[in-house]
């Protein structure tokens, strides 16, 4: 009430995960919001979920006015999301107004008419279950059944005004023909113009990408732009509100081991507890080994570790680990390790992100490794990938745990991958693994490129791999150009001479 006194529009939470963040609180209370989208853009799911969440989470009863599907179809379709509408109907929490076409409904018009019957039925249903939420899905059908003119628009306006008078918060869905074109068919937006949400299902480089956008909320604020969302079985619509992520993670001085004493020394005492580390290297440089040691180091300190593997099966991972003297099986039995293996292709990136978040929240690990993050590049557009990486890293940082990601570089001798380009600025530390060609032999080099908030070793050190894992040795002294992939040897005298040069410079 105090809000009314100040003239601020109240909102009600829809209960659709992610959406309320984008909408800064939910839908404007007591008003009708137009939800417009092309075929298959999840309009019906949105409008049903708005009511279902009302029943399950807010004790708000709902009325669904259905113009296309029959109530029976809706009930069985929505069971997959875990919404037992039949039960709610029996409990008096839900009512249908069935305005779906029936076979005998060949409409013959014999003079003037109006949609008074529809309005009377909606009012009756609202009274019957004492509803606070109403969805109308989808009003376009009424134009095709009656007439596509201003008369029906006027009738719908009458319904929207009546809902407003009853203090109902309503969702009205409408079709649109193009993803980026007029707001809705038949000019529906002309009568519910206060609040417009657009759901999109865009084809981007052979991948479907769902987004929601709040076009306008008259008199109140909301986040701008398109936000990805996904439709999950058992849950319904889940929004991924990326710009809702705030940069307010706490920062810790606590160091944790990288799983290698030598690397800890190079990092100035280990990684920070709530940091994100990127390990980048070509195929075969030892990224998975780095991951294995990172996990072994955690488990040795009684930490719970979570590994997401997108390239290898559990059997392969366990066998590899054994080859480096790490017993994953024992760690799993001790409850210190959980390995999740999946092909990147099994789901869209939004779905991967939601699943990974759910597993992290459920398992509550102290450290997480993703091997490899770059494997996920190929199942999405660049834009979608960037959003995914941002969403995942910010989530991990928010949990105040350590995350180690690996990225495979596209060329053998180095070079930057898409992953590096998109996440290097949001990672706290970057460790590069590189092949170094020396006198007809492939050696391996490691360097800590970046270590936010700490001193670190700037050398490029050689490392070897044996049955006990990774051994980091001495720096490469007389080679330059390792990182660029073009190693050039210089005689040792030259190196000394350069050293003298800079020392003299310092004296002046």
């Amino acid at each position, binding site marked *: 009430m105090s809000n009314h006194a100040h003239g601020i529009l109240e909102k009600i939470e829809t209960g659709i995960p992610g959406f309320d963040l984008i909408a800064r609180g939910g839908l404007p209370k007591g008003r009708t919001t137009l939800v417009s989208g092309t075929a298959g853009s999840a309009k019906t799911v949105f409008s049903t979920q708005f009511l279902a969440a009302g029943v399950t989470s807010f004790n708000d009863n709902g009325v669904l006015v259905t113009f296309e599907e029959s109530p029976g179809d809706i009930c069985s379709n929505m069971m997959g999301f875990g919404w037992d509408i039949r039960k709610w109907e029996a409990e008096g929490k839900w009512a249908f107004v*069935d*305005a779906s076409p029936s076979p005998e409904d060949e409409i*013959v018009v*014999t*003079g003037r*008419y109006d949609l008074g019957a*529809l309005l009377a039925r909606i009012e009756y249903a609202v009274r019957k279950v004492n509803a606070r939420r109403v969805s109308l899905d989808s009003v376009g059908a009424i134009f095709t059944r009656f007439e596509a003119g201003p008369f029906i628009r006027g009738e719908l306006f009458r319904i929207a005004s009546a809902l407003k008078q009853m203090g109902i918060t309503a969702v009205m869905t409408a079709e649109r023909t193009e993803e980026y074109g007029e707001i809705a068919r038949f000019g529906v937006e002309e009568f519910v113009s206060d609040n417009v949400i657009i759901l999109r299902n865009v084809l981007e480089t052979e991948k479907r990408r769902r987004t929601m956008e709040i076009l306008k909320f008259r008199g109140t604020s909301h986040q701008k732009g398109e936000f990805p969302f996904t439709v999950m079985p058992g849950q319904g619509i889940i929004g991924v509100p990326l710009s809702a992520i705030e940069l307010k993670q706490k920062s810790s001085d606590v160091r944790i081991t990288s799983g290698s004493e030598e690397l800890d020394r190079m990092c100035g005492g280990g990684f920070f507890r709530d940091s994100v580390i990127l390990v980048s290297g070509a195929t075969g440089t030892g990224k998975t080994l780095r991951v294995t040691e990172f996990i072994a180091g955690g488990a040795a300190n009684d930490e719970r570790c979570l590994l997401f593997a997108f390239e290898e099966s559990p059997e392969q991972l366990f066998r590899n680990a054994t080859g480096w003297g790490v017993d994953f099986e024992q760690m799993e039995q001790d409850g210190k390790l959980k390995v999740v293996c999946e092909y990147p292709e099994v789901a869209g990136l939004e779905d991967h992100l939601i699943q990974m978040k759910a597993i992290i929240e459920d398992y509550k690990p102290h450290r997480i490794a993703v091997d490899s993050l770059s494997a996920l590049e190929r199942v999405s557009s660049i834009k979608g990938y960037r959003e995914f990486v941002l969403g995942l890293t910010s989530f991990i940082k928010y949990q105040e745990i350590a995350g180690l990601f690996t990225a495979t570089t596209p060329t053998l001798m180095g070079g930057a991958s898409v992953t590096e380009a998109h996440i290097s600025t949001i990672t706290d530390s970057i460790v590069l693994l590189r092949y170094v060609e020396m006198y007809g032999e492939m050696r391996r080099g490691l360097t800590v490129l970046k270590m936010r908030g700490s001193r670190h070793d700037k050398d490029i050190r050689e490392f070897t791999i044996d049955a006990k894992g990774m051994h980091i040795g001495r720096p490469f002294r007389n080679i330059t150009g390792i990182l660029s992939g073009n190693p050039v040897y210089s005689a040792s005298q030259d190196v000394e001479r350069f050293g003298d040069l800079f020392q003299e410079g310092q004296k002046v």
Partner: protein
Amino acid sequence: MTGYHLKLFVTGKTATSERAIANLRRICAEDLRGTYSMDVIDILEHPQLAEDEKILATPTLVKALPSPLRRVIGDLSNKEKILIGLDLQPVQQPSGKGDAQ
């Protein structure tokens, strides 16, 4: 000959409702001559009946009997359309339907 059962759904006592009722009475009297029964249902008083019949627009005239079920909407000001739309056969037509003009 089976009797007709007609149901007219209206919303309140508006001018359109009254016009539809009057038009229907006249058609029944002139063309059906006693072989019918007729209910006028006000949706504001009996919303559940409108729900059961899935009525959206008013006035709506439903021919419940004989089957098949037929409906027309509007204030029934166009008699020709009503007769065709409802499959009503006027009693006073000795020969072919087309000769009515």
